[in-house]
């Protein structure tokens, strides 16, 4: 039984978040591998490499540093679960990327987070909550991720 009293909601506190463009990753993917499990489907796809460009980071995707380990639900929705490494062009710093998200017809969106050296140039990527729009490049095994920080 509740031992609290719901206060009058102060609607002034319900602000609106903003999305700040961070960078784009032009990712080259390897061949996907699918398996059927007792729970649903598994889809594995390595990231073969790529370029990173934008105001917050310029660099490369470290080839074969990870990939997507999606779970395919029974309704066909792909639950994305990816990780890979990037390297900054100027300082050679390593940056870890993690994705969670959903892919279904007409929708390919991601929650992303990063780990960067805390004393490095890109430490501001640590701890932020990021979103990404993913777009498949027609006719190629490539995806463009556009990352935004939620501020």
């Amino acid at each position, binding site marked *: 039984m509740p*031992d609290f009293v719901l206060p009058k909601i102060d*609607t002034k506190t*319900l*602000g609106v978040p903003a*999305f700040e463009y961070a960078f784009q990753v032009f990712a080259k993917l390897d061949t996907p591998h699918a398996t059927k499990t007792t729970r649903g489907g598994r889809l594995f796809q390595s990231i073969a490499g790529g370029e990173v460009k934008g105001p917050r980071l310029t660099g490369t995707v470290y080839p074969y540093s990870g990939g997507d380990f999606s779970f395919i639900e029974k309704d066909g929705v792909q639950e994305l679960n990816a990780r890979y490494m990037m390297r900054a062009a100027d300082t050679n710093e390593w940056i870890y990327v993690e994705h969670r*998200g959903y892919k279904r017809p007409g929708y390919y969106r991601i*929650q992303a987070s990063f780990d960067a050296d*805390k004393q490095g140039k890109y430490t501001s990527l640590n701890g932020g*909550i990021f979103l990404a729009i993913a777009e498949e490049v027609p006719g190629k095994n490539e995806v463009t991720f*556009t990352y935004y920080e939620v501020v």
Partner: protein
Amino acid sequence: MIDRRDFVIGSLGTIAASSVLGSAAQAAVAGDPGIISSTKIGAAKIPTLQARYAFSVAVFFKERVMIESQRRRAYVPAIGGEIWGPKLQGRVVPYGGADYGSGSLVAHYLFEASDGAMIYITNYAVIQRLDANKKPVPWAGDTPTPIRPPGEAPQQFFGGGKETDGDLQRFRTAPVFDAPVGKHDWLNRTVFVGHAVRHVNPDHSIFTYYEIL
């Protein structure tokens, strides 16, 4: 000014502190603010990210427990709460879950929609401290607060017992839902983002969730 110790206690050893809603945002909107878009970036071919207000949740707390392991595990159960907004209404099930975060905030709660559906949420969250320019303060060091003796409860809330100050803190969340097949199952295939504001007396947070379009 947030004392680092208060900060770490309150935020359960989270990442770095900062925060939040600009004054324009504070002035905003109780109901549906319509569609929020990312800022247009020049003429470049950068797609626009859009989000739409989905619902808000007030989660109330009482116990704030910290297990002093090396990674400092929190236990902060939800004692109840309410859900309102265009896409979901209902309540937070009392003791249906807690923040069990270690290093950053990871809360698991159970929602009961007004139609009776039970919905599970995992709420990954980050609280960052902001500097005078509203930029996150980089994580300064690894060391935070003295270790408490076993069983001693933290006495202070985040920010030394003050409410979230939008000029000082940025509290953002990345929720993942598990809803039953039916009316609410769109939650299972949609990316959301949220922000939160902490309140004291009584101790609660209000989370506002946006559907990423």
